[in-house]
């Protein structure tokens, strides 16, 4: 079975025909070609598929596309605006928070949601918010630093 699916992704409206068993992750990557969101463990453990659904970070591998009918989705492709990297993206580069880059989209979406609810998070707050996102390269310190730096630069807002 399949059904009509109305979605808002990064501010754009979509009307799609989606088979019932397809996940939000598959629809984003394969139907909408938004491949910034990564497919990692398919068990909710690694966080590389993290997107925001109505402002909340969630693991898109554990969600059927049809479950989010009518929702607003934000992915990493919505971070940069008008050809400008967001403050968060910029600080990730500056602090060396990116090595292979596979976890980065999920990290940035989780961090985006954190800054939305807490504009000056402590290191503990950051660790707690990112506990569901695994990085096998950086050892996390660059990532924590990037988020702290972004917070200081007003990273709650996308750009300067």
């Amino acid at each position, binding site marked *: *079975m399949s*059904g009509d699916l109305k979605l808002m992704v990064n501010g754009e409206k979509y009307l799609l025909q989606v*088979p*019932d*068993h*397809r*996940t939000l992750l*598959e629809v984003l990557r394969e139907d909408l070609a938004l491949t910034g969101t990564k497919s990692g463990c*398919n*068990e*909710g*453990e690694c*966080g590389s598929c*993290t997107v925001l*659904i109505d402002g*909340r*970070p*969630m*693991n898109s*591998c*554990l*969600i*059927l596309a*049809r*479950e989010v*009918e009518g929702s607003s989705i934000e992915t990493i492709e919505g971070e940069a605006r008008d050809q400008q990297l967001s403050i968060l993206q910029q600080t990730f580069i500056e602090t060396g928070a990116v090595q292979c880059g596979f976890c980065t989209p999920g990290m940035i979406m*989780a961090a985006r*949601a954190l800054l939305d609810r807490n504009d000056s998070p402590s290191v503990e707050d950051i660790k*707690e*918010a990112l*506990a*569901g*996102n695994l990085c096998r390269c950086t050892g996390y310190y660059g990532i924590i630093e990037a988020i702290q730096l972004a917070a200081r630069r007003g990273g709650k807002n996308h750009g300067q």
Partner: protein
Amino acid sequence: MLTRFSYIAPDNLEEALDFLQENHDSTRILAGGTDLLVELYRGEQVENLLDIKKIPELQELDENDGLYIGAAVPVNALLENETICSVYPLLVEGAETLGSYPIRNRATVVGNICNASPAGDLIPPLLVLGTTVHCRSSEGSREIPLQHFFQGPGSTVLQAGELVAGIKIKPHPISSSSGYWKKSRIKGPDLAAVSLAYLVDFRQKIFDLALGAVAPTPLLLHLGEFLPGLHDDFDRNRGLILETVEERIKPISDLRGRKEFRERIVGAYLERALERIQGGEQL
């Protein structure tokens, strides 16, 4: 890729119950999906997924006269509710250790009990707080005390055509001492190797202890009879309590810990609980 199934998301309870009654053999209930989708990825086959999150009655969260939590309420809704955070610290402690922030945005409280893992993080706190499971089917409703809800790992007393509409928790005792501890392999998101929650109501002389991951189902033990003795002869009664608990647990060895490790952790957590109770002014 998941194998094919049909997705049904009714927006009223009667419709959901009728569908479940007619298709119970081929249907699984979908709440947050954080357990169910993992099962489906691992090859579990299902014809119909019945999503219950769009049913308004199941979205209810009510903190008047105890606490009512509808089946569609995600774990983070507890942590974002000021009343719950101040009145039910035990529940908050359990909720905070469940998965990661994104998982808790999705995972429901009721899903944690329906999944019936002996290690479910919310179960020990709910057991000692005094929880009743409100079940519905197209034929009627029934109330089951949470301690009678579990049959074994992954198995509950729910019957064909029945779902959990919500759970009801008793008002929190005023003169109380409580605690929750979870031992897992890592500091981050992980299921418990052992978990323990206790609640003492000094006025009613109630001492309830719940243990996770040390038997085929979560355990609830009533230890109120030892309360007066803890005051008069702490060491002797501590010994009696430890013996009572050791007799009831049946831990196994698995990837989260050996049997002996689990026994030691239970003992250590129990010591902590007893010391905290002894320190309680009201004893």
